[in-house]
């Protein structure tokens, strides 16, 4: 079933690339495929037993000599993120194209990207993980470069080069990690069980450094985040939503799955350093976002802030401080919820930013004002998403952040206390953004500004409904994650 979820989008992408399908039909095919992939994931979810390790595993031999095989499976860490990704892909694909050119290729690349993204979260093979990691770069590169606006090509190239540099480090680290096993294996489950670099010298540290830098670029963490704003600003709205909602999660997921689970001891030794980087990202991301006058850039920088929370949660979970197991479980569950919440919320925010671009081709806050009258539905959607993003209780981010804070405070109290300051800056920056776009006087140029269309409204309503659901009743998601020792240290 998981194999289906990965291969179906690839197959449909190939179909759209080869067959001369008209634009309307290609859109329909793309939406149907994304929905089917999501359905496959939901079916897996229906049969999922929380806290029982890797499930729905499928294996097919590929390169037995190297220990490489087609392996897919999910646990409480990957299933929520994969489900969120599947949903966000349906939303992004169903979202109206910004510039209706080459629709067939557009949808083909989107499905290609979906296959790569779901593959990354679902695979249990380290080599496939790397392959999917790089394929996702390719898909995103073309989506930004060809369907973006402004200096799209430059931004796409910067994104590609920067994250490729990171992925090279990851490749080196993967190879080094796997070479420590005998016989060679790329099986994540075995690597987690084996802990190949446990008790090793400085090389273990170097391997961890490779992973951390590589994933930090993707996440992105301070100070290697500067590829993010241009990539977001010039990308089409739906691609931005996927970039923030799905691709950034790959960094956090990789950090948790590989660095934390497969290199337990080494990660624990460096957990505080990672936590400090996360803290700087939290503060820096929010402060820099506060000063942005381009609202898409502003939203982009808040991703640095939010991913900082998620990485802080992972660092706490992996810190292996004894006597604080409950705190670490809480933080890990918080980090996973943060990934899901950030995907839904920031995905929605970037889709809304896309709706703005489609109407005005302008992201400058100063050029807006008073739109609450013309576009109440847009105001409601963006307001809800903004308050969710700044961590209002009753919405998804709060669930994540409060757990990460509680967990972090138990391990490193001063660090958690400093991280709290991020909350106040994000509140100020999101309220400022809402105020300048929707309230006050309306510039005459915006008189003809139209509200969300029915399609846009329905997509956003679906995403935001989930944000509210997680916020008011988080138990179902937290149960699915079931962050126990089994999860922190690899499926049982």
């Amino acid at each position: 079933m998981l194999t289906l979820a990965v291969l179906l989008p690839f197959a449909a992408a190939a179909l759209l690339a080869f067959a001369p399908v008209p634009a309307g039909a290609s859109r329909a095919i793309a939406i149907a495929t994304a929905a089917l992939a999501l359905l496959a994931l939901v079916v897996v979810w229906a049969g999922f037993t929380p806290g029982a390790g890797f499930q729905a595993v499928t294996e097919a031999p590929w390169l037995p000599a190297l220990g490489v095989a087609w392996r897919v499976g999910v646990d409480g860490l990957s299933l929520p993120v994969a489900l969120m990704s599947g949903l966000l892909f349906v939303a992004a694909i169903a979202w109206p194209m910004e510039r209706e050119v080459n629709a067939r290729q557009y949808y083909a690349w989107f499905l290609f990207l979906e296959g790569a993204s779901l593959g990354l979260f679902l695979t249990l093979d380290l080599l496939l993980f790397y392959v999917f990691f790089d394929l996702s770069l390719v898909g995103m590169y073309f989506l930004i470069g060809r369907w973006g606006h402004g200096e799209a090509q430059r931004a796409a190239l910067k994104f590609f080069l920067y994250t490729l540099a990171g992925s090279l480090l990851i490749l080196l680290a993967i190879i080094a990690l796997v070479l420590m096993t005998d016989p060679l294996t790329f099986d994540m489950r075995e690597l987690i069980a084996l802990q190949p670099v446990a008790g090793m010298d400085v090389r273990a540290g170097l391997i961890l450094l490779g992973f951390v830098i590589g994933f930090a670029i993707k996440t992105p963490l301070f100070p290697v985040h500067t590829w993010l704003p241009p990539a977001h600003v010039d990308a089409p709205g739906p691609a931005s939503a996927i970039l923030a909602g799905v691709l950034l999660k790959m960094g956090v997921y990789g950090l948790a799955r590989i660095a934390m689970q497969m290199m337990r001891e080494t990660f624990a030794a460096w957990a505080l350093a990672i936590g400090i980087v996360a803290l700087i990202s939290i503060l820096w991301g929010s402060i820099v976002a506060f000063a942005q006058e381009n609202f898409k850039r502003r939203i982009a920088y808040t991703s640095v802030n939010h991913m900082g929370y998620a990485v802080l949660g992972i660092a706490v979970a992996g810190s292996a401080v004894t006597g604080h197991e409950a705190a670490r479980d809480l933080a890990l569950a918080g980090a996973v919820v943060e990934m899901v919440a950030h995907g839904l919320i920031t995905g929605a925010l970037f889709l809304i930013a896309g709706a703005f671009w489609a109407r005005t081709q302008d992201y400058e806050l100063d050029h807006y004002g008073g739109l609450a009258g013309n576009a109440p539905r847009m105001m409601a959607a963006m307001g809800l998403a903004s308050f969710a993003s700044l961590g209002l209780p009753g919405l998804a981010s709060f669930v994540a952040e409060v757990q990460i804070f509680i967990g972090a405070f138990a391990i490193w109290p001063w660090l958690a206390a400093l991280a709290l300051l991020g909350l106040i800056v994000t509140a100020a920056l999101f309220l400022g953004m809402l105020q300048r776009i929707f309230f006050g006087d309306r510039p005459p140029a915006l008189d003809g500004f139209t509200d969300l269309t029915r399609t846009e409204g329905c997509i956003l309503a679906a995403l935001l409904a989930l944000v509210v659901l997680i916020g008011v009743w988080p138990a179902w998601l937290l149960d699915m994650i079931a962050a126990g020792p089994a999860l922190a240290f690899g499926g049982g």
Partner: protein
Amino acid sequence: MLFALSLFPALAGLAIWAWGDGSRLRLGLMAGGATVVTLLLAVLAAAQGWTGGFTWGAGLELQLALTPLSAAVALTVPAVALAVLVFAAAHDEACGLARLLGLMLVFCGAMELAVTAADLLSLLIGWEVMGFCSWALIGHLWRDDATMASGRYAFVTTRLGDLGLFLALMATWRGAGALDYAALGRLDGLPLALAAFGVLIAAGAKAGQGPFAPWLFRAMDGPSSVSALLHAATMVAAGAYLLARLHPWLASAPGWSGAVIALGLATALAGGAVAVMQGHAKKLLAASTSAQLGLMFVAVGAGYPGVAVAHQVAHAALKAPLFLSAGIAGDAAGTYRLRAMGFLRTLPWVAGLTALAALALAAVPPLGAAWSKEQITAAAGHESLWLGLAVMVAGAFSAAYAARFWWLAYGPGDVLPKARPRWSGMAALGALALACLGLGLLWLPPVQDTLPMRLPEGKPLEIAVSLTLLAVGLLAGLTLARRETAPEPRAADWLGLPALIERGIIRPFERLAALAARLDDAVLDAIPRGAATGARHVARGGRRAWGAMQADRDIFNAAVWQVAAMTRAVARRSDGAGETLCDGLPEGAARITGRSGADARRLQTGLSHHYYAIFGIGALLAILMLIFGKA
């Protein structure tokens, strides 16, 4: 079950908002009906001792429970809200009225959650949702840029205080492994101090104490009905309630009671002075709220949380009608400047009802607020003689600004009102004013005996001094009001505190953020740009080497030649392959690859060669790493 008390008004409010604007009668009936049901729920909950529990997940649990203290507040909230909502339905702008009423109900729901909470997480949820409601309601007239900015100011200021609650929550979990209030009792040392002072910061921010006071002034940009709700039933009132509710567990934290008293007393005196100087009707009342909440803080710090809650209930009954009345006077005068008012002759009924509430604010016996204020004086006197005296001085300030407010707004004057109150608005005002009168029953010993709390014993001498000071305050207020001519002193704007915050915190932070943004663009982005430049140099070097090699290969190291040749070859082959594929194979299986090649070509800029160079360097590094890694 107890969740119904907060969920019902919240959901009803959302439903009213979603239903949309309509006739005042329908909206008033719906909102009023929902509040009546909430009130009945509160009565039932208090009578039957409802509790509530909800599994949050990850081992956390939301718990609700009622104590006698919280039951009193839980009843006060919908009771006051009922009058305020009826008034709002009659008086506020028809456009957006459904949103206004709906959000007010949500506000009450959030307040009820904070009141009934029995653990810190539920409390935090209600606490922060209240912050959201205040933002939306203060900015209700959103077409005006200033109101929205004020809403943001209020939200950010109170959220700054919320961080204290976050801190308390984290410290409690670390110290006790749970979040229910009882867990606070298992804390000691640093976690207890953090929890206690964190709660104090949160309560102080919501209650407009000390440095947090200016947000209450900014909040005056909202409609008067919103101010009435905010100051009487929700939000601000929550600050004093929280301290009273958590007092049993936090009082043992060293220095905490003293800090609560200091903060409360300082605000009571400063707020009193500010209110005496203010020339803006609503801001005068706002400063007086800070001052009255300060008195409640003093009561909690002195060890009498029950007295604080009693004064809170009495204050709710008097502050709501005063704000509604200020709204009527403001509409009638077209401005909130007190000097432009004076409606004794033209609005005699309003003047009479307001007089009741103003006398209650001045704490003139036999009104209920006077009793609770004397209790606070007695409680403070138990703590120390000087504290008792200071509270009496604060009481004199209350009398002065209450008298001044009434005289300026409803004293003799010949201003013709531009607008007159509707009968339903008058009914709301009247009901609240009668409640002030009704609370006078608290003076009767049999009624006092039924109160489920410890009362301080007042000394006759204390009461005499207190009443004398009160009379002096009243006279001073009236004198000031009759001599009101000059423009208000600059200190009337919270003693210059807002300007200090603007200059000392907000602007420096904005500069810091702008600097950070510039650094981010200029310095941090230099890492990849530096890498790109480096790569360009490598590529250029390679090209030069290539040219030189054409001249004389022998003098070059073979390895260098190898690397350069490889880089070039990789570059040319990929480029060439892309071209060949899209030009030569338009059909068939290669088409997809061709498409990518075409895309790649479209995107080509001069930089792609650097990519190849980086790739080459990376490959080299990989090989080296593998060699040394194995060895």
